[in-house]
């Protein structure tokens, strides 16, 4: 999946400005990069990821720019040059200045021109740069080069160049090249990348869920692939996580990645079948195979042109008849509880999955299960859970094919809903992952009973306050009070409404049901590493810090806490519900 750029996948381009751009690689189309130019997708298709290209200027009569692959040595040249300089002791003056606290930022103007250098050893003023901004623009229009020329010209025209140490030269070049080099890097789309891109654009939509938190959540929820060599593996469920995701699908994608159900299986097509790879990728860009060996064999791939058509238009893809029912995998599954009628997982489309038109060959098609809170808590009032009337085969035969199709679709949909709702209500989940703006007490009240003992709980929040409140519900004092305060003794059948309400107020959640509750935060701090000039970057993104609550589901000692009024109520939900 991440060896090479496959057909119709989403990739991320990093532009010279440092900005990211998400692009779907549709063959025979051009990708415009504004002033940096444009290039054909065919020039990156089938090539490895993490390569940097330079857009060359169009030759006469050419409709497309060519790309030049920039070798790593060239990418690292500047840093290495400055390392050399340092090694040769040239840094004496520089580091002396630094040691005295000399500031070392260039002030670069709006249009990239150097306004002021703070380097104390160089007297600098904009007049020394004899090339005017207009001239630079002119040069660019004339298209005499790919930015490098321009930089060279600017450097040459800079009178004070000699005064510059190699260090400031390197830095100067960096500044300039950012502006003028028409380079871009092709990066694979994955949840970590997506978090980064989204943080820059629509941080609120992903609840400001940073890449740092993704790994932490996965660890504390103990999310992983599940594979059980037991005999009953066809039917036995295992490796099931419950998820509540208000991040548009980012959290779901991140957990799915950890479980091995986000990408099509590709390991078998590693180096051995290079040519095969060409074929299967070319015809089969969005064809996915679930990773588990117990999954049914991959459906036969459709013909190339048809496939291309199917994926490049927004026509609903027709599922092959013999495919496994959606949301039916017994193992390594994510069960998503959603607050609206439909799950909101729009970001999954960056991974080739659309919840409205799920591709039957995508692993999420069988491994991701979705149901609404209504289905979970009150299935009897959920129309989707009500069985559509069964029609006899004879009667069906008399129907028009369209009507028959509708009938079958309805039945299938109901079967799916019923299966998912029933198995969810049965509980036994291995973990719970939450990122929601909803009140957490209610969320946990209804989900904790669905977890097996020893299951892990991880709740993310951009802000600390909701999690502080949650921690408080499991505070040592509250737990002790719950145990000591008579609430823990045998259930009182005589408890009246007031008593019950009081209990509810004092202990909104059973404080003994979670062990090892903790609250934490993690944040990466990036550094610049250059000899003699290693320090943390001066600026970073502010905003929500991001916090994680975690705990382990446990079963308090028998007969002590159990059947108090409200807990009995909750148990009912667990066992089969009020529906």
């Amino acid at each position, binding site marked *: 999946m991440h060896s090479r750029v496959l057909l119709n996948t989403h990739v991320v381009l990093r*532009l010279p*400005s440092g*900005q990211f*751009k*998400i692009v779907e690689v549709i063959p025979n*189309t051009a990708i*415009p990069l*504004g002033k940096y130019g444009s290039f054909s997708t*065919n020039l990156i*298709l*089938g090539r490895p*990821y993490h*390569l940097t290209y330079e857009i060359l200027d169009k030759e006469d009569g050419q409709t497309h720019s060519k790309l030049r692959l920039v070798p790593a*040595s060239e990418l690292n040249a500047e840093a290495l040059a400055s390392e050399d300089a340092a090694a040769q002791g040239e840094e004496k003056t520089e580091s002396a200045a630094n040691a005295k606290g000399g500031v070392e930022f260039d002030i670069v103007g709006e249009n990239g021109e150097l306004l002021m250098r703070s380097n104390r050893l160089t007297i600098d003023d904009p007049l020394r740069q004899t090339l005017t901004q207009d001239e630079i623009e002119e040069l660019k229009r004339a298209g005499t080069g790919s930015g490098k020329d321009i930089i060279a010209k600017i450097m040459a025209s800079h009178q004070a160049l000699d005064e510059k140490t190699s260090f400031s030269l390197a830095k100067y070049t960096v500044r300039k090249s950012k502006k003028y080099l028409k380079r871009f890097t092709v990066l*694979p789309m994955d949840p*970590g990348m997506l978090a980064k891109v989204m943080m820059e*654009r629509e941080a609120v939509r992903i609840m400001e869920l940073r890449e*740092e938190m993704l790994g*932490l959540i*996965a*660890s504390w929820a103990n999310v*992983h*692939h*599940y*594979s*059980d*060599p*037991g*005999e009953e593996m066809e039917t036995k469920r*295992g490796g099931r996580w419950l998820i509540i995701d208000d991040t548009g699908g980012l959290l779901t994608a991140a957990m799915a*990645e950890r479980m*091995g159900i986000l*990408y099509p299986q590709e*390991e*078998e*097509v*590693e*180096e051995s079948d290079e040519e095969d790879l060409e074929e299967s990728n070319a015809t089969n860009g969005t064809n996915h195979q679930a*990773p*588990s*060996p117990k999954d049914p064999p991959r459906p036969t791939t459709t013909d190339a042109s048809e496939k291309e058509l199917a994926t490049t238009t*927004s026509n609903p893809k027709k599922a092959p008849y013999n495919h496994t029912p959606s949301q039916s995998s017994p193992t390594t599954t994510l069960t998503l509880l959603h607050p609206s009628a439909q799950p909101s997982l729009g970001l999954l*489309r960056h991974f080739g999955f*659309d919840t409205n038109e799920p591709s039957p060959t995508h692993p999420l098609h069988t491994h991701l299960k979705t149901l609404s809170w209504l289905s979970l808590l009150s299935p009897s009032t959920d129309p989707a859970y009500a069985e559509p009337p069964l029609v006899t085969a004879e009667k069906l035969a008399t129907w028009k094919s369209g009507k028959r199709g509708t009938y079958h679709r309805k039945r299938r949909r109901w079967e799916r809903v019923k299966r998912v709702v029933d198995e969810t209500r049965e509980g036994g989940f291995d973990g719970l992952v939450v990122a929601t703006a909803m009140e957490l007490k209610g969320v946990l009240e209804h989900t904790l009973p669905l977890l*097996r*003992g020893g299951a892990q709980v991880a709740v993310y929040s951009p802000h600390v306050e909701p999690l*502080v409140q949650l921690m408080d519900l499991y505070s*040592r*004092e509250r737990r*002790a009070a719950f145990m000591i305060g008579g609430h823990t003794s045998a259930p009182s059948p005589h408890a009246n409404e007031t008593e019950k309400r009081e209990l509810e107020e004092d202990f909104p959640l059973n404080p*003994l049901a979670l062990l*090892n509750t903790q609250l934490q*935060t*993690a944040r*990466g701090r*990036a*550094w610049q*590493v250059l000899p003699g000039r290693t320090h943390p970057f001066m600026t970073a993104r502010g905003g929500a810090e991001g916090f994680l609550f975690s705990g*382990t589901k446990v079963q308090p*000692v028998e007969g002590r806490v159990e059947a108090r009024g409200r807990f009995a109520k909750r148990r009912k939900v667990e066992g089969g519900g009020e529906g």
Partner: protein
Amino acid sequence: MYPRGHSLKDLVRTSPFLNPPPKATPDSLALLGLRRDHFIPITLQDDGAAVTNTRFGSFPHQALLDLPWGTQVRAINVNASRSKKSKKQGGGKKRKRADDDDGDGNLREDDAGGEDGEGEDGHELASSGFVHLLPPTPETWTISLPHRTQVVYTPDYSYVLQRLRVRPGDTIIEAGAGSGSFTHASARAVFSGYPSQQASAKELENVENGIAGGDALPKKKKRKFGKVYSFEFHEPRVQVLRDEVKEHGLEEIVTVTHRDVYEDGFCIDEEVDGQPQPRANAIFLDLPAPWLALKHLTRSPPTSSQIRSSANSPMPVTESDKPFRTPLSPTKPVHICTFSPCIEQVTRTVSMLRQLGWIEIEMVELLHKRIDVKRERVGLQEEGLRGGNPMPKSVDEALGRLREQELRTRGFYERQKAKAEGKEDDDADAGAEAMEKELVKVEDGTGDAEGIESLLSKQQRMESNQSKAQERKIWKEGKLVHRTESELKTHTSYLTFATLPREWTEEDEKRVARKWPVKKQGGVENGDGGKRGRKGRGKEEAKLPEGGEDD
């Protein structure tokens, strides 16, 4: 527990980390949770004599077996003298957390212990203490494993595995293995099944179908299973880790190799599907001098021009006797992380990475904090209680107290005066009466019935507070506050990340270019990823100005 017969379960040994059985089973790792951050790892034995003794009591394994995970278990008073001898003292003092600093005395940590006897000496071990029986996870193992070295803890390894893009089916190289903390976390991350599971499944099938050998079956594409290749040059550590890996059912996933990786690199003689191993796509180096290992992590032999003769690269290249082999995946991008506490180590590592053609080099420090939450109770009612602040909670309360004190002082003087004037009885009574009246006023003024308590002695006030506290719900009172935990790790190590893209030769390029020729066409513009297709898709792309420019 499991039915005998031809079952995969008999052929494949699973890991309690990855496939915890539904209940505690013999010979499987389990943890006894004593309190936050305190777990005792035990291997359950189906043996009447097997007992684990903790500070909170004794737990015979027979009583633990077959219990569902998460069960709270009471201690059984086996034999106090045996406990005394036990080495497995649960309640070690070294990791006392903030639990104890809010000092709320009678409310002891209740996760475990209940009536926790004081005795570190084992004699007074309470028989009514309890623990929780838990399945192992890399997180709990990390804090309970027998430490041989510094270990990488959960915040760091989570971030590293995230940044290294380690996914099920991947292959990761790890050196040095040390205490195996990172090993367990990466085993979970790469796990994509047990290799023998597939083989055995096939065998089983063949047996059932009466076919000998696997050849008769149609050739299926093999799945690649996730693997951890772990290297360590300290022999005893290698031994311990190998034992653990075996005991934890991870031997099919983790291979521990005894080797000095600076000298001998990372290739191993094992072959999988006829391919030399490891063919890794992720690398984690927790070594004192990672730059010395980097020369072994290339796809082609490093040239001497790559390794310049600068002072920091003692580079013994050419081992012309052996043909060059790479431990890296030839097709996948390789991600690396080195973990070093000192900045000098980082500088040298980064320099070497640059020379060897690694890109996207980034150094990050992970700032991680745990946060304690508590209720801050302030007010005169807290005097004599633990965990509260006995200062007045408000200006009003302060005023009230000041007034009372003032009255008290006045009462004292009045009594003194009366005494001096010899008319003790009458006047003293009158004085007391006046004071009473004043007090009523004070009470009316502040509405605080407790006001009168300042007339009592300190001892009396405290006792009164304590008895009142019995009626209070102190877990709901006060202000909910949070703060960084008292023991803070401010620096673990610097994390240096880099990527080595797949090598791409001109021939490769030619081949692919033939496949994807750039046709002359009307310039169909492919906008952003989501533009075509369903309406309302990703506003996020639309927002990006084409060719987004700014700097």
